[in-house]
């Protein structure tokens, strides 16, 4: 077992642990955060299924972003949809017998890589070119975009410029999952790609990328607009009432 394999195996165990535990912890804090008031952004649905539908539209179609800024919506859609397909394509590295839907998605996952890169370039340009966005941009905002872009770029380069040994990569990851390690090929692009992914996984729970789980806990989005029908009392307030 090469030094490289050991380092990356440990790195990915650590990164996975940090990602899972970190997001779990974050979600638990979101869940526990008090929501004393009814503050859904109106017009808001007046029923529970309506709220589910609203969240669905928000998560899948980025509805409020669409209403806010068409350009930003366009590029985020390109990026997120691209990323979703690319991730689905990568599922093949983690299944011994690849599911049929994952098999079918393979060719689309390739082109989604370009959509992803294009979306990121657009979002990056937005930070640079739009004055008021540049004013509020912190280094970490750029960092996330650059990190994701480099991951995408190295991935595309492995597909279109210098191939890596995909069989060995799959063996490596299946090996990690079964605790029977298998060597990782020492290809430059692959190492860069995996290293960046690991970094992303590690900083995910500490970054703005938490908007992903966070959106579900946003009171302005996940509340039912029924304050006239039903008096809203936060659970902790209820205790005081009695």
């Amino acid at each position: 077992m090469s030094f490289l394999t050991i380092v990356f195996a440990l790195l990915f165990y650590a990164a996975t642990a940090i990602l899972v535990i970190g997001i779990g912890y974050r979600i638990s804090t979101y869940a526990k955060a008090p929501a004393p008031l009814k503050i859904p952004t109106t017009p808001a649905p007046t029923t529970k299924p309506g709220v589910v539908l609203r969240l669905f539209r928000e998560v899948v179609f980025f509805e409020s972003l669409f209403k806010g800024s068409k350009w930003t919506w366009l590029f985020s859609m390109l990026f997120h949809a691209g990323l979703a397909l690319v991730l689905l394509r990568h599922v093949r590295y983690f299944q011994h017998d690849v599911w049929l839907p994952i098999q079918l998605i393979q060719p689309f996952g390739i082109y989604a890589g370009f959509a992803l890169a294009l979306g990121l370039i657009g979002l990056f340009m937005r930070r640079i070119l739009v004055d008021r966005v540049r004013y509020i941009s912190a280094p970490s905002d750029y960092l996330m975009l650059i990190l994701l872009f480099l991951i995408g770029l190295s991935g595309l380069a492995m597909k279109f410029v210098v191939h890596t040994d995909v069989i060995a990569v799959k063996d490596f990851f299946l090996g990690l999952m079964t605790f029977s390690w298998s060597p990782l090929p020492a290809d430059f692009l692959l190492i860069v790609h995996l290293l960046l992914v690991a970094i992303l996984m590690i900083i995910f729970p500490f970054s703005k990328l938490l908007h992903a789980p966070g959106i579900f806990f946003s009171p302005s989005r996940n509340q039912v607009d029924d304050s006239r029908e039903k008096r809203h009392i936060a659970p902790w307030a209820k205790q005081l009432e009695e």
Partner: protein
Amino acid sequence: MLGSIGLKRLIGLAVAGLMAALAATAHAGSEWVTEGSRAEGLDSCVIDDTEKMRRNHMDYLVHQRDDVVRRGGRGSQYKLAECVNCHTAEDAAGHAIPIDDEGQFCASCHNYMAVNVNCFQCHRKVPEEE
């Protein structure tokens, strides 16, 4: 947001896969040669270094295909027909099994990676003899 659903799913899959794969045997890398093919009796690929062939066959074949078709150059040693000649197995009746059939030489790796083999939609899948 869409993406992170994918991400979470991926992690979910990884965890589920971990459990499943613990029971199944891990994949060993060296048993790719098809049982009952000519290649089985050889120590290494007769065209080039076996490991090199396994990793780079697609690039060699693409390069060779352009050379043959566009330029009319037939000198390359990397010939799809030779892969087929050497790596097909025979069934009980002595007929060659198409090389891209489930579990055969090409299909085994390609299915493992969910990569399509495009070649045999047009190219002959069994050795050409009698």
